[in-house]
């Protein structure tokens, strides 16, 4: 449960930090509409996440911590194509969009691969591709690199940095958010700090002991 808060998130790069169980994920899930607020409203571009949920479909991407559980079809390209069924009735157009998105992320070689055979890093990139096919305006990353090894972490960071969309990144890996414009620090369900990365991280290090 989160304490009541009122925020306006206009910056392009926003970090969210805090200990496990501090409310970071609860907060993130309010933004993309996975959870409805018990009080008040969450609005994106003037649209309410509950009342206008359908209009917001596909506009907020969400990348989870566990790479494997985000790809739900056996083959990467199939998974990406499935995400477009509701918005593009023509199969050729869907396949073109899939190919274009894979190319943009430089992972065209992963399109025909079976998800089961991919490494964690490749799966996270595939999950990112699956999110990007719907051309989201905002992407939330919930601990995107914590289950990856160092090399895959760098790959993912590079891919994330190249994205034009607004990003909200929850991360234990402070290096990921230290260049951001704004960082929110959660603790015990409360927003403890809302400031520049340097200040928020300093607070974090205090409470982390």
């Amino acid at each position: 449960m989160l304490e009541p808060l009122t925020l306006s998130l206009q910056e392009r790069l926003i970090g969210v930090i805090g200990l496990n169980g501090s409310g970071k994920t609860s907060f993130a899930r309010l933004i993309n509409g996975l959870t409805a607020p018990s009080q008040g409203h969450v609005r994106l571009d003037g649209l309410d996440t509950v009342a206008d949920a359908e209009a917001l479909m596909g506009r907020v991407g969400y990348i989870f911590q566990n790479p494997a559980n985000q790809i739900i079809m056996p083959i990467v390209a199939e998974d990406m194509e499935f995400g477009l069924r509701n918005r593009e009735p023509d199969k050729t157009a869907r396949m073109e969009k899939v190919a274009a998105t894979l190319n943009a992320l430089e992972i065209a070689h992963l399109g025909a691969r079976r998800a089961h055979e991919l490494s964690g890093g490749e799966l996270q990139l595939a999950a990112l591709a699956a999110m990007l096919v719907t051309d989201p305006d905002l992407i939330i990353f919930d601990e995107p690199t914590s289950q990856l090894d160092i090399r895959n972490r760098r790959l993912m960071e590079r891919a994330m940095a190249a994205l034009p969309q607004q990003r909200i990144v929850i991360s234990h890996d402070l290096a990921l958010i230290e260049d951001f414009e704004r960082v929110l620090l959660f603790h015990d369900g409360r927003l403890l700090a809302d400031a520049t990365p340097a200040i928020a991280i300093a607070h974090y290090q205090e409470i982390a002991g």
Partner: protein
Amino acid sequence: MRTLYAEGTGPFYRLPVRAKLLLLATLGVALFLTRSPFVLAAGPILGALVYFTLGLPFGLAARRLRPVFLTIIIVAAFSFLVSEAEEAVLQLLRLTTLMLFAATVTATTTISAFIDEITRLCRPLDRLGLMRADDIGLAFGLVVRFVPEIMTRYEAIRDAHRARGLKIRPITMIMPLILLTLRETDQIAAAIDARGLRGHSITTK
């Protein structure tokens, strides 16, 4: 992956799925209403002609039918010995014919063609609000996606048991396998909902 579809061309490949299934059903009924051994004898011959000329190498085509054909033969032999001989022969002819034509439908129909047809058949239920027709394709994909993960999980459990010197017994293996698999549910469901894969967004508390 592993599929029983076999690439090829020919009349059976061009027939729509619905037509093939209807023909097969009609054939089944016709076979069980026929009592003439001579008419029925033509069945397996025609069936074999059709099935074995589809393009599959003979050995492979035959091997696929072996388990079913074995049960057909064994039960027919059993019938022959303990019950009426004539009925046993008719039974053998009927089932063998059905088996061959059923295998032909399977070999000439792609999985996605089947799934599309079943989804289409469920659209009326969709409109009535009883189910989401597109969930079938999603459920299907989920199963094929996660079977190899479960097998890998099984091997990990087995290796962990061996390392600890524990005996491999069904109970000690299957219990963690099921628990660990079920525990992935929430993460997978969250990913599906976050991507809006089921049409309307689902908000959970």
